[in-house]
Each structure stands twice: as structure tokens, then as C-alpha cells.
């Protein structure tokens, strides 16, 4: 029976249908992402035996694009974040007369949180969107079909090299961001508090443990995996030509950043408390 027009419940069936459709789509995409990850890892493990080897040259090409070419922008952002944390830290701690304790705050927040998260967000915007656009364009121009009919497994050829490169290069970028952000913070602390760089880094290393570093780098590796899978899934679902590619690219960035922030929160909840 249909609800009368204008009744407060008139829109409920449509709303529930929409919620249902979105839920089914989300479950389907999650399942596809899981299968895709499994298949990419499977090709890495047994590709050579099945005459579908994952080319080292392809991994290097992806690593150059994902990692080396992102270095300038990571450097700029990390330096800025380091300075910003130092300014904010000194300003806050000055209320308690504890400005010199800013080094501990900078060390932990950069290595455990800011460097991995900022690097992840940057790579999601830069490489995740490019991956979605590339896969989407290849799909609508039948390049994926061309790979399949040439006997080349598309996941092995396109996804596995990108996945390996991201899982390796995002932690490398995060490590670089750690170093640059700590340096940025050190330069400002030196100017503001007159602390030498060597004294600053002595305090930084005293505040940090190997666990802190591994926490940040481990998180970055997971971010790399998430960005790749989300980019590929969105690219593989493209329909509707160039407009569809644009939509997929935007969606990949939004989904990846959301996934990164939620994953980061889960890491903090599980490992920091």
C-alpha cells in the first residue's frame, strides 16, 4: 500500500530503497576490493610460475612516479608542518613556562601522526586519483579488454606493480617527511628558544622509541595499500565516458582520505591508549 502524498512517511520507502542500494553497492565494492587485493598478491607470489611474472621494471616505474616525483611536494608540506607544530607547541607551553618541552610534542606528533597522515593524504590526492583515472580511461577505451585477449592478466600487469610500489614508497616518503618536519621544527625552535640543532635532535631522539617510528611507518604501508585498492576499485567501476572518469577520480580521493583518517583513528585507539 502506498503512503498518501504529503504524509510524513511518504518518502520513507524511497529513502529505505536508497539506503539499501547504497549498502549493497558498498558491500559489493568492499568484496571486490578484497578479491582484488588477494589477486594482486597471488600474482606476486605465483605469477612467474604461471607465466605471468610481475616485472621489476614496472614496479620501479611506479615507484618513481609514486615516490621520487612526490619528494618536492612532500618536502614542502613536511617542512611547513614541522614549523607549524613548533609555533603552536611553544605558544601553548609558554602558558605553563615549559617551552623547552616542545621537543617531545614535536617528536611524537610528527613521527606517530602528522608525517604518515600528511604523506598519505598527499599520495591519495596525487597517485590515488591518477590510478583511478588511468584504470577508468583504460576500461572505457577497451585497453583492459585488449590486455585480457593478449593473455595478459590486467591485475598482474596494472595493479600488482602499483600496489608493491605504494606499500614500499609511502613509508619511505613518510620517513623522509619525518626527517624534514623534525628539521623544520628544529629550525624554528632554534630561532625562538635559542636551542642549537644538535641539542634539539638530542632531545628528539631521547623522546622517540623504535616503536614510535614503526608505528608511523607501519601505518603508512597500510595507507599505501588502501590508496591503491580504492583507486583501482573506483577506476574499474567507471562508466559513462570522460565524465565518469572524472567522477571516479574525485571519488577515489574522497574515499581514500576518509579511509586513511578512519584507519589512523583505529590505530590510535588500539596502539596508543
Amino acid at each position, binding site marked *: 500500500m502506498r503512503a498518501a502524498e504529503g504524509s510524513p512517511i511518504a518518502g520513507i520507502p524511497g529513502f529505505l530503497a536508497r539506503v539499501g542500494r547504497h549498502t549493497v553497492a558498498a558491500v559489493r565494492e568492499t568484496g571486490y576490493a578484497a578479491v582484488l587485493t588477494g589477486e594482486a598478491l597471488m600474482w606476486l607470489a605465483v605469477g612467474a610460475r*604461471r*607465466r605471468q611474472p610481475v616485472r621489476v621494471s614496472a614496479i620501479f616505474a611506479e615507484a618513481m612516479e609514486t615516490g621520487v616525483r612526490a619528494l618536492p611536494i612532500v618536502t614542502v608540506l613536511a617542512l611547513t608542518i614541522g614549523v607549524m607544530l613548533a609555533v603552536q607547541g611553544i605558544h601553548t607551553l609558554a602558558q605553563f613556562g615549559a617551552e623547552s618541552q616542545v621537543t617531545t610534542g614535536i617528536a611524537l606528533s610528527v613521527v606517530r601522526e602528522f608525517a604518515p597522515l600528511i604523506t598519505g593524504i598527499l599520495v591519495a590526492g596525487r597517485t590515488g586519483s591518477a590510478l583511478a583515472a588511468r584504470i577508468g580511461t583504460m576500461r572505457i577505451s*577497451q585497453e583492459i579488454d*585488449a590486455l585480457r*585477449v593478449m*593473455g*595478459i592478466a590486467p591485475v598482474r600487469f596494472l595493479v600488482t606493480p602499483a600496489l608493491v610500489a605504494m606499500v614500499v614508497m609511502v613509508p619511505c616518503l613518510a620517513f623522509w617527511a619525518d626527517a624534514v618536519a623534525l628539521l623544520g621544527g628544529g629550525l624554528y625552535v632554534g630561532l625562538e628558544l635559542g636551542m642549537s640543532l644538535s641539542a634539539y635532535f638530542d632531545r628528539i631522539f631521547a623522546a622517540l622509541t623504535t616503536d614510535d617510528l614503526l608505528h608511523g611507518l607501519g601505518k603508512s604501508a597500510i595507507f599505501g595499500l588502501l590508496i591503491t585498492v580504492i583507486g583501482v576499485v573506483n577506476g574499474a567501476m567507471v562508466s559513462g565516458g570522460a565524465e565518469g572518469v572524472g567522477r571516479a577520480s574525485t571519488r577515489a580521493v574522497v574515499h581514500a582520505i576518509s579511509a586513511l583518517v578512519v584507519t589512523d583513528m583505529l590505530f590510535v585507539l588500539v596502539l596508543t591508549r
Partner: protein
Amino acid sequence: MTHTSRTPRADGEAAVGEPVITVEHLDTHFGERQVLANVDLTVRRGEILVIMGGSGSGKSTLLNHLLGLLRPSAGTVRILGHDINALDQVSLTDLRCRMGVAFQGGALFSSMTVGENIMLPLREHTRLDARTMRIMARLKMEVVNLAGFEDLMPAELSGGMVKRAAFARAIVMDPAILFCDEPSAGLDPVVASTIDQLILDLRAAFGMTIVVVTHELESAFTIADRICVLDQGRVRILDTPENVRASPDVRVQALLNRRIETPEVDPESYLQRLTGDIL
């Protein structure tokens, strides 16, 4: 390379080789909609078979089945003696190395040069050294009259050149079967006729079996040994071009003469279709 014209077969048989493609009782559904219904088809060695039909007739779906890109609801597709839907991954890769496909839009990889595109199957499936691969790619580029363009990017090629490059990539592994999806679509008549001639030349030079999906009538009658006309997912006729042209079937003649068949409209159902879910 000398140009070769199609040789009509005097005995009325389109081709004499053994079957290399056999389609039996093929049914395909997309959701509730049946796209192919009980399609039976045989392609013999060395034959050029043209699959024709209007938009939505199911010809692209049939091609996707022949390429193993779709799984049928029922029926079998045997390529070179193998059920393409029952092969394991390694055997399917082996089979695909014996098939070449020239896609409608070329499907060249935009991030690679034309030469790299053509060499890709060699790089992935052979242990040839780089120099030998380049020579083989150049050889195929000579065959399709594209010599000297190996360092260009696909975006720098004209429509006809893209099709030629797609042909070069499709034949670089010397396949037993070549599939062409709308090879002359979107080309001017002169360039389209050179593509038709290229298909005939490839068969003459390499003895390939060629399956062409097209809606270009002139092209179909120029190159085909046999023509398969698909209509609403069913094989309407599968015969020599002469017999297809002479077919008394009204729908075949409608396709050949580009006549539009307007179905009779029942006013009641028409009104229901327009307003049923709104009023």
C-alpha cells in the same frame, strides 16, 4: 606486399578447412534480458566470416564470447578445439597467444609508443631479446604500411593509422585467428577500403582465419567468404555473400536495404507505457 582480391568459391562452399571456431546453442542473458538465443556458428580454417547486424542485434556480445570475455548462460564456444570457458589460466593464455584482436577504437595503450604497443605481446609471452622484438614489430608495421611510425604516441596517429597499428599488434604473434571489431567504422570511404584490402592481404599472406564484426555493408560484401546476419540475438542467415544478398528473408533484406521496420503500436499499451508508473 601485393594486393589480393577475394576469390569467389565456385562450388558454393565458403571455405574448405576444418572448423577452428564452433559455437553451439549459445544463450546469453544480461539480467532478465536475453541478448543471444541459441546461436550456432562454425568458422573454418582460412575463412573470412563477417558477423553483421543492426545496433543491439548482439554482434558485439557474440564477439566478446568468441574472445572469452563473457561467460554464456548456456552453450559452448570452442576455439581451436578448446572450450574457451573451461580452460585453466595457463591454457587460456596459450590459446590467446594464438588469437589476435583489432579493437574498434584500436585500444592502443596511450602511455606507450606505437612500437612499444606492438611489441607488448612479444615482451610478455616470449623470451626474445629487445633487438629481435623491434625487428619483428617493424616487420608487422611494414605489413600494415605503418613503417617509420614506431616512435610516435597513439595520440599522434590518424584514425586509419590507429586501426593499422591495432592490426600490427594483433598479428605480431602470428595468430591462427584474427578478430576485428568494426575495422572500418568511423573512417572515410577511401581509408575504409584500404582497411578492407589489408584484411584480404593478411589472409592471403598468413593464411589466417578472420572474423570481422561490422555493420558496414560494402565492407562486409567486399571481404566476406560467408556472412552471418544476427537479428535480435538470433542467427538470421549464415551463408555466402551471394546467397545473403538473394535471401528472401524480409528482415535480412531490411538490413541490406537499410529499411526501417516500424512495429505496429497498440494505443492502449502505448498510453500505459507513457503514464503507467506516474498516474
